[in-house]
């Protein structure tokens, strides 16, 4: 899973790099325009939201597993099972 994800991200990076180079060659972007790009406040807020969204989506199963454990811990029968 992680291996194929890493390979996907590598392909994506290369393709993005190609786009940047072609845009610079076509004089649509100045060289370094992306590296020196600074989002304004509204854009920054949107990007913060995007990042949060991705994070919550990717790690949602962990949160769900914790809630399932919580439900189990709240059941009295289980509570006796884990007595040590």
């Amino acid at each position, binding site marked *: 899973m992680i291996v194929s994800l890493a390979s996907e991200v590598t392909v994506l990076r290369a393709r993005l790099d190609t786009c940047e180079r072609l845009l610079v060659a076509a004089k649509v972007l100045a060289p370094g325009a*992306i*590296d*020196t790009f600074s989002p304004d406040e509204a854009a920054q807020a949107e990007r913060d939201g995007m990042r949060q969204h991705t994070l919550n989506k990717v790690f949602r199963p962990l949160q769900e597993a*914790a*809630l399932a454990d919580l439900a189990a811990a709240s059941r009295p029968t289980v509570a006796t099972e884990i*007595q040590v």
Partner: protein
Amino acid sequence: MSGIAESRAALAHPMIAVPTHDELVEQLFVRDLKLFVGQTLEPAQQKIAAQIVPEVAASGSNSPVDDLRHRMQSFESFTTWLSLKRESQRQLWAAVEDCVERQADQLEALAAVDAPKGTVTLDADFAAPDYITRGDIHLMPGGNAHDDGSVLQGAVMDRGGAVYMLGRNGGMLNDLRGHTAMAHLLTVAPDIRPARILDMGCGIGTSTVPAAVCFPEAEVHGIDVGASMLRYAHARAEHLGAAVHFSQQSAERTSFPDASFDVVYSCVVLHETSPEAAVNILAESRRLLRPGGIAIHLEVPLLHTLGDLWQELSSELEAQFNNEPNWRGALTADYGQLMRAAGFADIRVGYQATAFNGRTAPRKFGEASEGVFRSWFVTSGRA
């Protein structure tokens, strides 16, 4: 360099490593991941613990925190949460190291300050104490004493701290602890005009520069164990316009003569040492004070003030998963007793309200913690 959300000129001090577009996004991601771990996953574990605490209480165990931990371990989400906690911290340093290494030359050039006001004195034969070399504190690769002749370990430490502060007000100086120590000093001695001040365990000088800011007339010293950190601390202080004398020494036993300081303080150092070292550091702070001088030792809130079993367990896990060598020792100590044993008078033990500027902050010191980051544990005494 211009454009990216933090250009060097816009920063509080120019020594800090500045991320590129991608590096900044990565650092923001790690910060958010750490927040997710702490604010989404951890509260679920806290609720699970709340279900289990009555069983722990009923069992009458004499180490209830260990008992709680043992029971929590039967839940897979508990161990997953802990792994992610550790991994996100490791990821933080990996991201920061890339960013620092890329601009190594630029940082070295910035560190070569012309006509400095302060100094840095390194000791090639210095042997760092075991508790420093045994594990990498905060999981920072190489640890505090790491040295390759450059300023880079210091730069990594500074940038790592800054990641926590991204997007917050107050800049990246990370100097609240130093200012809070100075606020305590001015609370107990409002008219003090110290001639010489020492910061023990100064790191990259975040806690030291506030002494120079609050007492511009004083001669300010800072000591720590790592040469790279100290080189960086020196450059950073110079860029901030503060005259500080840094030297590589152990706070357990320094080379300064008896009674050579008016004020000696430390900020969040004791929990990174050992119980024996903490005793030695208090004693050394007493030895260095002239009669009537004041020692201040600031720490994170003590464990018993946290009040419940889960808080105790979670702070113990923080210690273990973030490599804090003396967390329990330093945060369960009886400081009144330790300070008396070190020979101090006028001993105070309590909480000082967090100060942004030690000079102008409200002089608020009391018995109770106002919560993590709103106040700091402080013990002080007079020689």
